[in-house]
């Protein structure tokens, strides 16, 4: 049974408690255990990932300036983001928290929505907006705006972080799988035939196979969290998690990426098999050639001896 962090997590660290005023948080999802910054939540995940608040030391004045900048529609410096070449277990989230006491005020300012929707990745402006029981959340990969009553905002934030982490994990796997297709196209012929010229590519193929296996492992680890069943009785946090998973199609995407990884894994597995068979055959071939050469040498000696003794 996979526990639902959105219902069970409460941060023990007072330094990460949600403030009563609007603020921007830079959150890092990382597996790095050496990072001593305040941990917002830990994930029930074999990689040991944690959500770390990276802007906890930010003076309030700066924080206020960041909120003002977002609401004014200005650009906010983004936390460092890695290019998606390799699968990695480190993701960033910039979260704008807007505690709202007035229960009728459920509209997130359009400038904040626009900021969340423009996450710096062209073609990825897939903003998901959810309003439920007085809490309004706008999310796009890497950015989110959360507006809720101060008494609920922490549990909603944790549910949001839980979703963001697994979504980011899935997205990084999807990116890595997409990047693998051109290589796969080049390597696919080697799954059928391996020759002498391909011998030099064995380490390359091995690396790619290992990478695909690592991605597959990671995908299989996060799949239970993507297909998490609805809990009963529902809570605000659990409903938010379910809605986000549904709206961002995590389950289907997880299935698709698993299928794609299976294809890549199958090709590289066959490449590995072909390479291994070829190397074994090559060793046998070498042995055969050695025997042939030695027999040839013996034959020449015998022939010359015979010719010399018979002909001269």
């Amino acid at each position, binding site marked *: 049974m996979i526990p639902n962090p959105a219902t069970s997590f409460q941060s023990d660290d007072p330094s990460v408690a949600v403030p009563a005023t609007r603020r921007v948080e830079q959150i890092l999802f990382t597996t790095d255990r050496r990072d001593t910054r305040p941990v917002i939540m830990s994930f029930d995940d074999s990689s040991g990932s944690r959500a770390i608040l990276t802007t906890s030391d930010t003076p309030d004045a700066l924080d206020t300036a960041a909120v003002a900048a977002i609401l004014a529609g200005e650009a906010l410096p983004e936390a460092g983001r890695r290019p998606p070449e390799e699968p990695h277990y480190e993701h960033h989230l910039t979260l704008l928290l807007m505690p709202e006491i007035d229960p009728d005020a459920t509209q997130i300012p359009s400038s904040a929505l626009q900021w969340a929707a423009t996450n710096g990745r062209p073609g990825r402006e897939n903003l998901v907006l959810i309003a439920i029981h007085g809490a309004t959340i706008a999310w796009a990969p890497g950015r989110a705006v959360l507006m809720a009553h101060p008494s609920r905002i922490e549990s909603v934030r944790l549910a949001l972080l839980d979703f963001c982490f697994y979504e980011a994990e899935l997205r990084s796997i999807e990116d890595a799988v997409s990047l693998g297709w051109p290589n796969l196209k080049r390597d696919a012929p080697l799954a059928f035939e391996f020759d002498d010229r391909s011998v030099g590519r064995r380490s390359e193929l091995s690396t790619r196979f290992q990478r695909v296996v690592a991605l597959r492992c990671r995908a299989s680890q996060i799949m239970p969290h993507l297909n998490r069943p609805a809990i009963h009785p529902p809570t605000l946090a659990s409903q938010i998690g379910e809605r986000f998973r549904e709206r961002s199609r995590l389950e289907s995407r997880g299935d698709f990426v698993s299928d794609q990884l299976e294809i890549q894994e199958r090709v590289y597995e066959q490449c590995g098999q072909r390479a291994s068979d070829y190397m074994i055959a090559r060793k046998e071939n070498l042995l055969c050639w050695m025997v042939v050469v030695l027999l040839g040498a013996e034959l020449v*000696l015998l022939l010359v001896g015979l010719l010399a003794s018979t002909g001269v």
Partner: protein
Amino acid sequence: MRFLSIDLLRAAAIILMIVVHFVENLSLLFANDLSVSQPAAIAWLPSGFAAPIFTFLTGVSYRLWVHHREDRGDTALAITKASVRRGLMLIGLGFVFNVLIWLPEDTFNWDILTFIGSGLILLSIMRHAPPVILPMVSCIVLALTPALQSISDYPSYWQEGFFNYDLTLFDIALGFLCVGYFPICPWIILPMAGFAVAPLIFSGTPHRRLSVSIPVIVGGILLAVCVGVLLAYFGTPRSSAWQLISGWSMLPPSTAYLCGTLGLSMILLDRCHAILDTTSQEITPLGIVCRTLSKHSLSIYVLHHAVHIWPLWAYGLLSGEEASHFWQKAMPASAALSLAALFIFLCLRLFLWMDRTGRLGIEGWIRWLCD
């Protein structure tokens, strides 16, 4: 793609060969043997490098040609077929050459053309072998050769300074294997070594002047072996068996001679490639000369024999003697040397003109027939 390093070395080997053949066929013979103490004979010793360098480069060129064909997308079978056709063509040309130049009684003297043809066919088979097999075969051949020469009584075929055989299957087969002018054992070592080291030399980037490559190391070891056994040769009593291993002799090719010439060929090619071969399209006048001589090496080989051997035979017959009466005594060495220089000059002009006018030499016709 043509490499200046290969063209230069092949041109040097051809010039050396022309000089050697003119001088040795028209005047005196300096044996390639360190036991000859005359200063002129010692000065003549480098002449022994012509054939080894040329045959070594045959293996190198064949490897590059195979790579070129593979890159072009030709199948292994097509490459083998073309190789065998070229080999058979060279063997056939070799026999025709022997009959026409050396007269019918020397048809089976197993000269360099028949050797290169046989070598091509062998290499076309051996190219499928794992890389370690070629050095292994070379070492076995190197080790077996003195034994084969001893078993077959090599000196008995060379009592008059040329390969004197009976027209029997035994002598013809022995000539091909180990007692002819260029028998498979041990001469196959050279093209085989060229074939094996070509990727080591030509896969690297040119202009690596200071780096020490594997061919240089192997070549250095072979030269050291050569020098070592030569020193041992001078310090020990000389027996005929010992001479087969450690004497400096081309006929029969001794172990020291093979190691020395092979080592030097490897080092020269590697260094020349490192220093001379560039990606620049510009070609110097020296490069043009080397390229022309290298490109038409087969035609030059046939032509230079025809030019100096046929008049020699004709002169003998016109004098009422045997055709070969004036062989090695037609003129003084200096005159033969001058004729060789004149031939090289005229030959160069001829082939430059042929290149300019698009006329094919013997190589061109073989390529036209075999590819």
